[in-house]
């Protein structure tokens, strides 16, 4: 679809993240997998080898591991702004799952849709926003000031 038909948003951050300190925007990752199914093989390998290291390296993310009977294993990521993202890890290898989790941790919870501009500024103008009257001499003589200029017979009105 065209850009007009699909949703879009402006570049922004949650709570001005990064201006003060950087806060990892993910709060919870839940791994839902099956103990026996073929499709959760990668998930099971990931849990055996890598999940504990991942949890130790990111103490700010709570990792839940739920074995339950399911056809498609999932990763459910919850972000600080309330967004919940579910990603299927159906028949993925352990490395692919690590990459996916890395991608999820580096995202903020804002929607992944077209960003209209790759820039954002809160002070768009330093010298003052141009308007048609900038740098134009005023056509009106500034009226009403009883100055010496009148007494000196300066420029006519």
């Amino acid at each position, binding site marked *: 679809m065209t850009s007009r038909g699909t949703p879009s948003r402006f570049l922004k951050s949650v709570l*001005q993240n990064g201006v003060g*300190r950087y806060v990892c925007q993910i709060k919870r990752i839940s791994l839902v997998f099956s103990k026996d199914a073929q499709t959760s093989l990668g998930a099971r390998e990931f849990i055996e080898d890598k999940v504990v290291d991942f949890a130790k390296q990111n103490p*700010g993310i*709570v990792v839940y591991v739920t074995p339950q009977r399911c056809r498609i294993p999932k990763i459910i990521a919850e972000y600080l702004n309330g967004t919940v993202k579910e990603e299927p890890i159906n028949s993925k290898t352990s490395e692919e799952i690590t990459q996916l989790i890395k991608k999820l941790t580096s995202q903020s919870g804002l929607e992944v849709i077209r960003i209209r501009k790759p820039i954002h500024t809160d002070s768009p103008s330093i010298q003052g926003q141009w308007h048609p*009257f900038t740098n134009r001499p005023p056509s*009106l003589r*500034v009226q009403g000031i009883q*100055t010496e200029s009148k007494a000196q017979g300066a420029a006519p009105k």
Partner: protein
Amino acid sequence: MASGYFVSRGLSPLGVHFQHVCRNVLLTQTREKKRWMKSYMLLMERKKKLEGPPPPKPRSHQPNWDYHAEVQAFGCRLHETFSLDLLKTAFVNPCYIQSEEVNRKQLGVDREAVALNLKDNQKLSEQGAEFSQSYLADCCRDAYPNLPPEGVNAIVQYLTGTEIVCHVAKNLAVEDLTLSAEFPVPNEVLQKTFFAVVGALLESSDPQKAGLFIRDFLMTQLIGKDLFELWDVINPMGLLVEELTKRNLSPPEPRITRQAGVSTVLPLHFVGLYSDKKLMAEGPGETILAAEEEAARVALRRIYGYTENRRPWDYSRPREETTAAQAIGSN
């Protein structure tokens, strides 16, 4: 899947499957098109439309929730070391304790048997609120020395008001961890909980860390905001006259500098304020009075140093203590 075995009825080629859910419960399933399905689904849809969406459930009532782990992660995520007891106390609200007592009485649980050893966050909340307000006031006064006390108060009230604090708290996952009587957590309760967290930080680490926390999460909410959005000034011209008399400058004289489309539906007047015949500020407006007011506001912004092109707040290094404390510390 539970062990299923297949029994053919003989009449239809689509057999009947029996499934043992457990030893004594048997479910029958058929593969054919189910004629009751459509009316059942339509009925369900109608019911859903009548009742509306289900009420929101707090995160603690949804699967996958470990309070202790969440509280620990909360501290690590913000790069702060909290004492966990203080932090857990900070999340407990008095309304929660009351509702728990009521529930326990209703369930008939003996009071002494399962004592509710929870302290509420009243004290921490007051400490946190006081500290935040004083810290924010100090920051504003340092950064904008020309701003009068009413302006500083207005900014502090805005930053510690319900709107901003609740917005920050919701986006920092404080709402998930609060223990309160109602859900969704009411704004005042959430505000108190946030200040209690600040109070807990104050007690667990030093005031400097708490100050940095407030700077990083509350001061950043000022980005992109204009002074007069936060501070409601009814008579900017009068305020400007006061400011100028305080600084021994001559009072402002308004003059029309530019005009366009005066006799049209969208007139534009620019009024300039002159003090001592030097242009102080110029402001646009639809009517001359509106333009004069706007010019007064522009002049006030210039005087207080809160213009749009001012130097942005310095978040790079930790804010230094007052020079006196530094001198004492170094000696």
